[in-house]
């Protein structure tokens, strides 16, 4: 096997220049590892620029003693350090330079000692060292180098191999040490960058500089499987998933295409792969029996697995509940309509209880939601005058502390929710939210259920009727007219935003017509059209 007993400064410079080119090839991949939100973004690029500064500086010294070159590399890194990883890298080179002080050339054991000093220096330079980062990687890598020397080896290649292998393992292990990496499903970017540099150096020692031009550095995979991304909570309906059915089918003259065609109608996520004698089949089906019956008519079945996915989904939801961040104060909103539910979720409502005008939720429904949320302090937004009282009953049924902000309309609920102050306590927030209700006016446009006379208005069945903050003020055959009649009663001088939530029975095109008509009359206003999906009410309009 190839051995390198010692190298001088010229070779040290070449070794690190090769390592820098090696890093360059994967700099953007390393950038991509950055976990949101990590300060000073692009780790790969930052490390590369730091290395380049080192190499440039090392070329400025004509001297080829290892000591001088190492000093230059450390100085270049210090002056050109970019980002946290660059600063740590510069510390490593500083330690390395100290380790190689006064040496014309160095051996494997010198290198191991110098890397050890680099590791120590890296830890010293950081006010608050965090494990699971480049720091851990340099420490574990340099320890492995030391161990290799202790086992009697003084050859540079074998010391560097031990170092690189340990660095590889250490990088893969970073998500175990650092939760933020684990959540993002990536390894530490700085650690990966350092590994690539060390590995590039090893390849130089092995004399592979030529081949490296055509290769790319290896990106290390996390040794923890990628976590599942969690969808938002507050599923209103459960979609049945059925059974995940998998097996191996063995027979003669199997026809995978035909099997695929036959099974397609039986479920979803169908996969059939194989040949005439063996086929692997995977399907999500509500009726695994019929799949099995069909398959067993074609041959023999092996490794049969049928799993209930609804159960898995339930477990998943449970896990999600456990994992849901414990919010200090939870908010529960009563909302009907998929669009409105999305609006409330997007504004940070902890849980949504379906319900509204014609389907008022029960106290039990609300209590259930209160029990589910991971907080002892809960604010309820009824968003309907017929739900306020129900909501007020919840307090007597739970140990948790409940505040009901008696919002009577959807816009009042939105205004209250927006006012939520992340820095304020429970009582203050409830107070702020109660006050916020009055900052918004609500127009609702619906259809008359029957003919009647009210507030001096003659109303025919199915005619459009308009309410302002719950009071019936206009009726007519044309929806837009009715809305305009009510808008005309308002003083819009201080208004800034009008939001139009259009209902399930209303077309977007019509809603946009309404928006255009308002915009024409009141050009200074910002008008926003949002799909509310609420039943019965063509429009719910928020004026603030």
């Amino acid at each position, binding site marked *: 096997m190839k051995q390198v007993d010692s190298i001088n400064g010229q070779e040290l410079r070449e070794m690190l220049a090769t390592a820098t080119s090696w890093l360059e090839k994967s700099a953007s991949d390393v950038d991509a590892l*950055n976990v*949101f*939100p*990590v*300060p*000073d*973004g*692009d780790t790969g690029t*930052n490390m590369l620029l730091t290395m380049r500064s080192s190499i440039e500086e090392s070329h400025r010294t004509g001297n080829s003693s290892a000591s001088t070159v190492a000093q230059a590399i450390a100085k270049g890194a*210090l*002056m*050109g*350090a*970019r*980002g*946290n990883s*660059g*600063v740590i890298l*510069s*510390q490593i080179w500083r330690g390395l330079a100290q380790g190689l002080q006064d040496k014309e050339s160095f051996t494997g054991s010198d290198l191991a000692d110098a890397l050890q000093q680099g590791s120590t220096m890296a830890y010293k*330079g*950081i*006010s*608050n060292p965090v494990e699971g980062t480049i720091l851990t990687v340099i420490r574990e890598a340099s320890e492995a180098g030391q161990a290799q020397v202790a086992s009697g080896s003084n050859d540079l290649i074998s010391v560097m191999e031990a170092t690189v292998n340990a660095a590889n393992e250490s990088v893969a292990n970073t998500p175990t040490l650092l939760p933020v990496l684990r959540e993002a499903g990536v390894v530490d970017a700085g650690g990966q960058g350092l590994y690539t540099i060390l590995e590039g150096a090893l390849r130089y020692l092995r004399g592979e500089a030529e081949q490296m031009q055509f290769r790319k550095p290896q990106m290390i995979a996390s040794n923890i499987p990628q976590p599942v991304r969690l969808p938002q909570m507050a599923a209103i309906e459960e979609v049945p998933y059925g059974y995940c059915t998998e097996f191996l089918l063995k027979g003669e003259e199997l026809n995978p295409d035909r099997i695929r065609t036959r099974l397609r109608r039986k479920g979803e996520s169908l996969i059939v792969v194989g040949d005439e004698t063996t086929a692997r089949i995977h399907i999500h089906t509500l009726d695994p029996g019929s799949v099995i019956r069909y398959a067993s008519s074609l041959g023999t079945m092996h490794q049969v697995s049928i799993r209930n996915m609804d159960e898995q989904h339930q477990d998943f939801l449970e896990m999600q509940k456990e994992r849901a961040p414990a919010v200090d104060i939870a908010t529960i909103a009563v909302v009907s309509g998929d669009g409105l539910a*999305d*609006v409330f979720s*997007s*504004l*940070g409502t902890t849980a949504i209880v379906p319900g509204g005008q014609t389907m008022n939720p029960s106290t039990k429904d609300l209590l259930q939601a209160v029990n589910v949320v991971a907080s002892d302090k809960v604010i309820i937004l009824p968003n309907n005058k017929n739900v306020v009282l129900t909501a007020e009953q919840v307090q007597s049924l739970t140990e948790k502390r409940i505040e009901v902000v008696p919002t009577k309309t959807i816009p009042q609920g*939105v205004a209250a929710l*927006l*006012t*939520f*102050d*992340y*820095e304020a306590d429970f009582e203050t927030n409830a107070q702020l939210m109660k006050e916020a209700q009055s900052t918004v006016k609500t127009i609702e446009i619906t259809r008359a259920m029957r003919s009647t006379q009210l507030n001096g208005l003659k109303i025919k069945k199915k005619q459009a009727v308009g309410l302002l903050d719950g009071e019936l003020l206009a009726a007519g055959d044309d929806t837009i007219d009715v809305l305009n009649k009510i808008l005309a009663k308002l003083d819009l001088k201080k208004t*800034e*935003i009008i*939001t139009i939530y259009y209902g399930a029975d209303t077309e977007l095109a019509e809603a946009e017509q309404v928006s255009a008509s308002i915009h024409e009359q009141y050009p200074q206003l*910002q008008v*926003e059209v*949002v799909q509310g999906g609420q039943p019965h009410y063509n429009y719910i309009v928020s004026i*603030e």
Partner: protein
Amino acid sequence: MAVKIVTDSLSDITSDIAEGLGITVVPLTVFFGKESFLDRVTITTDEFYYRLTHNAVWPTTTQPPPGDFLDVYNKLAEETNEILVVTLSTKLSGTYESALNAKGLVEKECRIEVIDSLTVAMGLGLIVIAAAKAAQSGAKLDELTALVRRAMTRSNFIAYFDTLKYLAKGGRIGKAQGLLGSLLSVKPLLTVKDGEIAPLTRVRSLGAGMDYLYNFITGFSNIEELAVEHTTAPDEADKLVERLSSTFPKERIYRSTVSPVLGVYGGPGAMAVTVLESESK
């Protein structure tokens, strides 16, 4: 020998103020692709925001290398034997590490104290200004260090953002992440808490946002210093200052623009105010 005061460009201290009070400002770097600029040195705020809104290239930023701090230390060490460095929050940038790193490499004998302000923009700026004033009237390094630590607890920074897009893209949204993804157009109000960007609340319009800033400031009865700054909204900033003039003398309000580096995250149309409360006697 008077203590020399050093900070970074995210303090939003303008060159006028810096000169007047003898503060050295070390710039961070902003990149548009391969082009790099020194914050407030080789790129003006106007040029920067023009590029931010008109360029397809997304800018990135980075802390000054330790060498930049070392150069400053070496130069200042010619004139003094005590330097105080106050940087923006370590949760937002590694600038503090760079400043700390360079400390041990200074050639001359010089005491250097580096403090993580746990805040940013004029939240940091007003602390630095207070320190610089005290240094001018002869306070020594230990007194100044204590003064800065006390001022940190009295510096109240809040910002109105026209959009969270830039902050989210820049990866510095911190605890304000929950404000993202709203289906309605909302304008976030943010603060810096324990060194990190944290959400305060949301409003639906510029008007409501300005009211919030106004009410925030007038809620203090003990204002020592006040700063109003913006990214691309000079008219709104003027209006706010005008409105505040009955609360606080207009000419004493520090005006600034939010530095490009921070502007990368604030985006256009952002406004920030800082109240430095006076020390209770």
